[in-house]
């Protein structure tokens, strides 16, 4: 059964939406260029992008020195944001961000920027490959082992933390018919025993290894099957559980489309996925699905919002403020709120809206611009929109900004001040906050 494919027009507006959902928005001219290629080629250019290049100025701190992502507080955030801004493979970065949310690991519990960045590389390397490979890699990833206590799980005293979240959040979903039991949680924990680490002062957790003597070699019974299972088997058993494909498809879909897939689409995507656990074909089908192109808008995650502004402006990372601003806007990279990841129903509230205001203020040039004193309100607005790559605004928002410019002229503000203010206001419009 085939997954439906969007057949409507594919203009710059559709390409703009695709680039925001599957990346961090268009660079100037990119949406129009992508539209010319047609939907399929456009999607493939994202899902099969070739070798990554980083284009643009290297990241620095406020004094112009190179950043130190392994050591300096906040520079981990700068490092990844920079990669999102400069990459030529934005979907790979966006999927890496999605996997960071899916396998949400926080440095609050890990305590090592190096381990977090190592995990980040693992997520990136498997971003569009096999979910089986990804799950196996994440299960014994040092940051994850430490975050969910896999490195303290021994045959003498199992620790259930990873075994539970493996099923509840990573592969099966909680409380579903035909799901897992508390016994399965305990038996999974036994199968996962054997990993250890050492804590070295000044380094944090290190020297992760599998110690056979600490592994429980007894028979475990998981989902009604018995055997001398180990962590490979834990992963195999959840992947082959009947509830896994539906969970995988629905969750992956949720990162791209805000409405649930119809039953036929869900079923077709499950069928596609079951054939080898490949991520890329499912992502391609979602990116070409009518629901993405004709359905409702989504609020941009704060990081995508920030990276997108910088991509549009061609500006690099040149201040450490981005990490703190990430906190204000509700998404500090490497610090998800808990193992369930960020709550995308809460991207916009009073506090995070203000955080986004300051993200925009930090992205744009300080101003005031040198706009000539004879410019009209319409000309000022046109220039401000052009500054942001001419994003699509509705008439209502457009009129509000036009009135704002007119008021500014009436109130005797300088054209440069008005233009800078418009540059600040464009990214705060409902249209720009969403995609």
């Amino acid at each position, binding site marked *: 059964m085939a997954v439906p494919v969007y057949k409507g027009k594919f203009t710059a507006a559709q390409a703009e939406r695709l680039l925001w959902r599957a990346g961090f928005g268009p660079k100037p001219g990119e949406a129009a260029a992508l539209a010319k290629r047609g939907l399929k080629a456009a999607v493939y250019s994202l899902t099969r992008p070739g070798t990554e290049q980083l284009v643009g100025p290297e990241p620095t701190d406020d004094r112009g020195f190179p950043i130190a992502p392994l050591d300096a507080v906040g520079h981990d955030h700068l490092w990844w944001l920079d990669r999102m801004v400069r990459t030529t493979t934005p979907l790979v970065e966006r999927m890496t961000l999605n996997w960071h*949310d899916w396998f949400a690991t926080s440095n609050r519990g890990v305590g090592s920027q190096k381990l977090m960045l190592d995990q980040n590389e693992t997520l990136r390397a498997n971003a569009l490959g096999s979910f089986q490979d990804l799950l196996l890699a994440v299960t014994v990833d040092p940051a994850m082992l430490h975050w969910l*206590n896999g490195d303290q*799980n*021994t045959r003498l*005293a199992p*620790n*259930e*933390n990873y075994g*539970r979240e493996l099923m*509840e959040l990573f592969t099966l*979903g*909680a*409380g*579903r018919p035909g799901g897992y039991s*508390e016994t399965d949680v305990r038996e999974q924990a036994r199968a996962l025993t054997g990993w250890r680490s050492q804590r070295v002062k000044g380094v944090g957790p290190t020297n992760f290894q599998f110690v056979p003597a600490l592994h429980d070699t007894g028979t475990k019974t998981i989902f009604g099957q018995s055997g001398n299972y180990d962590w490979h088997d834990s992963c195999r058993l959840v992947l082959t559980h009947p509830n896994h494909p*539906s969970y995988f498809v*629905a969750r992956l879909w*949720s*990162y791209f489309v*805000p*409405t*649930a897939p119809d039953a036929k689409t869900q079923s077709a995507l499950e069928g596609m996925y079951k054939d080898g656990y490949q991520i890329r074909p499912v992502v391609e089908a979602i990116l070409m699905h009518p629901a993405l192109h004709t359905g*409702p*808008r*989504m*609020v941009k995650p704060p990081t995508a919002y920030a990276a997108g502004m910088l991509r549009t402006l061609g500006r690099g990372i040149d201040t450490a403020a981005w990490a703190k601003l990430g906190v204000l806007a509700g998404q500090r990279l490497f610090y998800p709120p808990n193992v369930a*990841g960020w*709550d*995308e*129903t*809460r991207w*916009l*509230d*009073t*506090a995070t*809206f203000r955080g986004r*205001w300051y993200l925009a203020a930090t992205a744009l040039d*300080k*101003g005031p611009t040198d706009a000539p004193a004879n410019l009209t309100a319409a000309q000022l607005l046109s220039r401000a929109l052009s500054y942001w790559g001419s994003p699509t605004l*509705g008439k*209502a*928002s457009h*009129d*509000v*900004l036009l*009135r*704002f410019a007119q*008021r500014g002229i009436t*109130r005797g503000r300088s054209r440069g*001040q*008005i233009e*800078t*203010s418009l540059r*600040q*206001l464009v990214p705060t*419009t*409902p*249209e720009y*906050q*969403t995609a």
Partner: protein
Amino acid sequence: MSERACHCQDFSRTELLRATAGKGLPAIEGGMPLPAGTGLSRRSFLIRSAGLAVAVYGGGGLTERMFADGIANAATTDGRVLVSVFLEGGIDSLSVLFPAFDGAYYDLRPKLALNQSDGTPFTEDPRLRWHPSAAGLDMLHREGKVSVLPGIGYDHPDKSHFTSRHYWEVGATDAHLLTGWLGRYLDATGKQDNPLQGLSLDTFLQPALATGKVPVASLDGPDRYAYTVANLEPEADLLEALAELGTANAKASDTALRQAAAAAAQAHALRDRLHPFDAGVQSPVQYPSSSGNGGDFPRRLAGLAAMIEQGLPIRCAALRAPGMFDTHANESASLASDLKLTVDSLVAFQRDLEARGIGDRVLVHVWSEFGRRARENGSAGTDHGAAGIGFLIGTRAKGQMIGEFPGLENLDDQGNLRPTADFRGVYSALFEQWFDFDAAQVIPNASQFARPTLLK
């Protein structure tokens, strides 16, 4: 509540992750429950008299002025207030009140067990002693101001943080309920123009307060809500534009556009009303200080006490305690510090209320989504359990145990403590005894749960 209707049809990752009641509910399909409260529209404004910035959920048709008037009209100096304090992660009840003289305790907890001489004796049950960090609770308990719930829970406990917490928040083991247990009470008794009747002292709405009809509010204490940027036009002019963006898009057909419009409109509601709270809240007692986010809890409690004394019409308030009680590893240190900051803040709040002469008006309910496994794990920590511990604090609290300590000799088949009191019975009793309100109106199957005596 058109916003609400739209959200109900929406689909979100949050709902995917929200566990369902465990039987017969496909968690993964469209139409599944959103977390309580996520469907409410939201605006912000300033309560001029108190200099407080408030985010209001619901109450669509009313202006800020009407809210301000409603608040003024509902102002009260004798109304009762219920404060909900959530210990996030599932606190280890066997460490808070530990069975110091039970050999089984030391067998189950070779690394984590406290010493027989640690802490202080629990005066109601000679088997138990208080954790040293809970000394403040012991003090208030000896004054007759703390009722301990040493085995609070429910039958067929769910071990998922997200599911069990949802049950406690909605007041039923029901994944479909979208309104909080306190929110439904406010819907039944509250006013359309008084958002402060349900006050979340947090950066977002605590789901226990989620209503279906009347507005409730969220407030992060003293306000630093500026939108100042160099080289722009004056802040007031920019906020005026934000308001217009909000209004112009308020009726957009797209849900996300409307959400973004609502957020923009909130900024305007604060325009030129940001009276400085620089002086901060003046408290008659000293609250614990803590660096980082831990300091939010005592700061918010101090603000709450001041607001209640000022007569602001708060009926139910909800806060999160500092720290994270999901202690799978190396439990001793983090539990000791988080518990101490929590307890010391609650003691300061109680003393604050007493100093202001409003102690009789306030009852604090402390809860966590579950307790922890009796046997420690291999990581000097504990895994998710079943029955846990809770408290009722206040000068009017009866000061006697509700349910008994379940004991280690009769663990359930998964090695967890069995509940000796049901949280829905406690909720029902709170409505009936504290608010003189028929619990059957808001707690499903309320008649099935025994009512403990809560008050003196």
